[in-house]
């Protein structure tokens, strides 16, 4: 499979041990960057159902751990919001999941049951060709509260300087 994303579900307890033993090739030595799945924003308690941080920049090849701190959430890529020839991901509710981002570009993702209440996020993978799917990702139709949240996310990414071509 020509996939730019590797992923593994991180289970807890014995299951985690079994899985990591069964899939040693997928284990990364470096600590992944953590995105927490939360019922409330840790700094702004008025915000419910958030990925924290919701905008994250990583280098190609880095791994992100979506950590199910609060229950009832998952992480799933949004159709049309990831670069071409990359594999979608869709974790089970309440599971932690690690996703390794090999191809530069913009990766929009959601909590499946809470997408329309605005629980969405963006991973920006730095590297050559990063901007190739920006327009496509921005043109995906959003519904409900996600519309407003995506406007905020794109603005946040712009202000953080993430919407320009990566420098070598």
């Amino acid at each position, binding site marked *: 499979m020509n996939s730019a994303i590797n992923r593994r579900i991180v289970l807890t307890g014995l299951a985690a041990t079994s899985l990591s033993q069964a899939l040693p090739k997928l284990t990364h030595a470096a600590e992944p960057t953590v995105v927490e799945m939360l019922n409330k924003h840790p700094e702004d308690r008025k915000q419910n*159902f958030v990925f924290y941080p919701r905008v994250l920049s990583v280098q190609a090849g880095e791994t992100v751990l979506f950590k199910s701190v609060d229950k009832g959430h998952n992480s799933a890529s949004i159709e049309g919001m990831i670069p071409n020839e990359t594999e979608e991901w869709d974790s089970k*509710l309440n599971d932690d999941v690690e996703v390794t981002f090999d191809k530069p570009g913009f990766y929009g993702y959601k909590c*499946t*049951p*809470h997408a*329309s209440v605005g629980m969405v996020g963006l991973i920006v993978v730095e590297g050559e060709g990063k901007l190739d799917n920006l327009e496509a990702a921005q043109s995906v139709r959003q*519904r*409900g509260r996600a519309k407003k949240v995506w406007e905020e996310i794109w603005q946040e990414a712009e202000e953080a300087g993430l919407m320009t071509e990566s420098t070598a």
Partner: protein
Amino acid sequence: MLRRFSISTIAALAVFLSVQSAWAQNAKGHDLTIVVNRDEDATELYFAGNAGDLQRIFAVSRDALADSEGLVDFAKFRDGTWDIGDRLLAKTAVTIAERDAGFEAMSLMFHHPSERLPMTTPMEAMLAISVCNGPAYGTRQPLDTLDAYAGYFAHKGSFDVPIRIQFPKTNGTPINVVIHDYHGADGMVSYRQVISGGEALVVSPGRDHPL
């Protein structure tokens, strides 16, 4: 003797049922709770009530909210319930400042009345509509035994303008509504209003009709 016993039993049962009915009415007190969350560039609307009452008020068929057997299958809610929410509001026109507001469902959730959730602030409403607050009492429940909580979002501000909710024409049965109108930093106004079936409900900001 047997006949006298039967009559007295029926009479006692009738008294019991009427007391129960009165108690149930008092416990609920109204048909529909509405939470409005106003912002400069967006508006959220939340509705809550007995699922059967909402079916009547919004004039939707049972099939719009439940399966063909009238059961709510919570196991199917994993991918979100906005489609059910859209069906509930399909026959109701909502305008902001007299223009179509384009409300879209965020989520809809059912809960048993014994586990009734607080529904006063937008944050409480958001939690009530969320599908992650699933029931612990089984996955398939009869629709008529449940309360429904639905949330809608419009990318249109309503800070200083009225919201008009035109319910479908029904049989004219009055609808007893409790409204919690939230204006961010300006706080919240709560009041009760009775409208007849099919009448428009106008929710004006800052209305001074406390509960």
